[in-house]
């Protein structure tokens, strides 16, 4: 009956990967609800961004101490996952440490380095937990995170502690091994007989691998999804100067045809919507941004509006975009198509007051370690407000009419534009 364990393991493994794949596919579908935008080409530049921003975590190193702790967790998690291969082989074949005979003396070196990394991950994650829950770091105690987001962050940290501890426990309970960190745990098991040790090792092994599968399937519901999306998001990040705003060709042509009607093609139709009212009006990159956000709040900590007490928080713009997109995606999944639900990203999720507070200073874009542009979304929503709803503060309406009539945002006579040349 020994094969029962292997079969159960096989089913759990295939099931976990299937579910994970299915959920990732659903996210991909949600992202593709966004408007098309051509971000192909410049492949060399784009891979460079992946190397620097995603693999190299360049932006994280603006704060070296936090960056190094984060690097421990990141490198640790990636490399320890090599161990996952052995675990899967063992689980499917019923072997015990299948790689040991293959690697010979290098096996101990490998596991020892995994253990060191596991120790570093534990160290970093515990510090992160303390920072998040017991210190007063503005961006981490912010009201943006009230409710689920705060629990999400702590769940991630706790799972990481549990997984690393199980990995070390499993090694410690194996009487044939003597690894660098787990050997310090061995004394806890003094006096236990071989069977008891084997039970502990097996139990730790099972909870560890099932825990990893569970964590993997938690990603699509969590801010932790950034460990996957940070990479494509760096690839597709804008290569343009940050100050350059995305051009609205439809409006450009409208103006051109108004000025030079002879250029207007017959039957040219006006676009059905200006700017973005809901998530489907944003580009797929904006939507991928929303799924890539790990809610760290570096954007909001640098935002001049946020740090002077205005309602705007770039992080919250990203979180609300993801929330709304999830809601839209769920409805489509249930009903097959999208039917207006009487709500929209603009107004129901993101308020006019938030949008009005933005100075377009690009501090949020500059700060984001995973190449998100909250500013892009803010601008698209502002476009909808002004062009679809004529919703602008009175001063802006005055500014618009001054530009239209006086060619300057203030009410000066255009004839006085060069008056300064006459002054002393």
């Amino acid at each position: 009956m020994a094969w029962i364990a292997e079969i159960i393991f096989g089913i759990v493994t295939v099931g976990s990967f299937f579910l994970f794949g299915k959920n990732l596919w659903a996210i991909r579908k949600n992202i593709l609800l966004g408007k098309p935008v051509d971000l192909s080409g410049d492949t060399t530049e784009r891979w460079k961004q992946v190397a620097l921003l995603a693999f190299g975590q360049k932006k994280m190193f603006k704060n070296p101490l936090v960056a190094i702790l984060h690097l421990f967790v990141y490198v640790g998690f990636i490399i320890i996952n090599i161990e996952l291969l052995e675990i899967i082989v063992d689980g499917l074949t019923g072997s015990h440490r299948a790689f040991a005979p293959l690697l010979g003396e290098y096996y101990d070196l490998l596991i020892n380095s995994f253990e060191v990394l596991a120790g570093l991950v534990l160290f970093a994650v515990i510090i992160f937990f303390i920072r998040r829950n017991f210190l007063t770091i503005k961006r981490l105690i912010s009201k943006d995170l009230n409710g689920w987001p705060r629990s999400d962050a702590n769940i991630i940290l706790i799972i990481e502690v549990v997984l690393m501890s199980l990995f070390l426990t499993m090694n410690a309970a194996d009487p044939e091994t003597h690894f660098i960190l787990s050997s310090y745990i061995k004394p806890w098991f003094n006096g236990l007989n071989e069977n008891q040790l084997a039970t502990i090792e097996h139990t730790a092994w099972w909870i560890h691998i099932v825990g990893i599968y569970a964590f993997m399937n938690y990603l699509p519901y969590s801010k932790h999804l950034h460990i996957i999306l940070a990479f494509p998001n760096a690839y597709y990040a804008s290569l343009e100067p940050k100050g350059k705003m995305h051009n609205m060709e439809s409006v450009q042509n409208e103006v051109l045809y108004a000025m030079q009607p002879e250029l207007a093609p017959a039957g040219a139709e006006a676009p059905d919507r200006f700017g973005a009212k809901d998530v489907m009006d944003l580009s797929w990159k904006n939507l991928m941004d929303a799924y890539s956000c790990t809610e760290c709040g570096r954007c909001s900590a640098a935002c001049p509006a946020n740090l002077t007490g205005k309602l705007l928080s770039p992080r919250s713009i990203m979180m609300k975009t993801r929330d709304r997109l999830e809601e839209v995606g769920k409805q489509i999944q249930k009903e097959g198509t999208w039917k207006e639900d009487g709500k929209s990203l603009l107004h129901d999720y993101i308020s006019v007051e938030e949008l009005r507070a933005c100075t377009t200073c690009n501090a949020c874009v500059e700060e984001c370690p995973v190449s998100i542009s909250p500013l892009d979304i803010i601008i698209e929503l502002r476009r909808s407000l002004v062009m679809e709803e004529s919703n602008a503060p009175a001063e802006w309406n005055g500014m618009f009419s001054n530009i239209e009539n006086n060619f300057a945002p203030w009410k000066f006579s255009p004839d006085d534009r060069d008056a300064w040349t006459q002054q002393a």
Partner: protein
Amino acid sequence: MKVATMAEFLAAGKEPEVLFWVGCAGSFDQRAQKITKAFATILDKAGVEYAILGKEEACTGDPARRAGNEFMFQMMAYQNIQVMNAYNIKKIVTTCPHCFNVLKNEYPALGGNYDVIHHTTFLQELIEQGKIKFTDSNEWKGKSIAYHDSCYLGRANDIYEAPRKVLESLDMELREMKRCKSKGLCCGAGGAQMFKEEEKGDKRINTERADEAIATNASMVASACPFCNTMMTDGIKNRNEEVKMDVLDIAEIVAQAIQ
């Protein structure tokens, strides 16, 4: 002062080296007019052959675009590009980072392709080429100064060094604020905020930035944008009525030290 327009150059059958794009603030705002005049004076002294569009210049459309009014922006852009292309403009220098950003990054997609340069970069080049020389005992020597990064010059276009190099070439003692360069804090004017009241909050953005400038204990503040200049001047005035901390544009500082 005598400043030639593009129309006058055209009438004389000539083309200037560079078009000086003055911008709305530089043209109409009393404080910014001083910056404009300072820069024009420098161009004259450095022997740069330049022209302005004069009455033919119009708002680039920047504040309208950033407020969300793309129609207004496109109309202004269309008009300006028509005028500049008719004059066969190749190179533009401007004292406003907002105009600079739009002319350099956003007009090309609309058919306006020019070599656009901000005045701080232009000044740095003129100094390097020896076309601007300072008096031996320039009045700024050794004075401490905090340079405030304009968002549309810095983060938006990665220009951090040119204005600092100009100040250093004057032997000024550069002091950095807590947030500077790519981490520089906005003055609060961008994104068309200049043209409306700030949203509800617990502090004004320019007060926050003024506090940082004051904390450097520098004797003055340098700006490179007419809007930053206004915001910083107001912020410092609100905070510090007794201590005088002048806010001067890089062009004004250079103009006062030039030979």
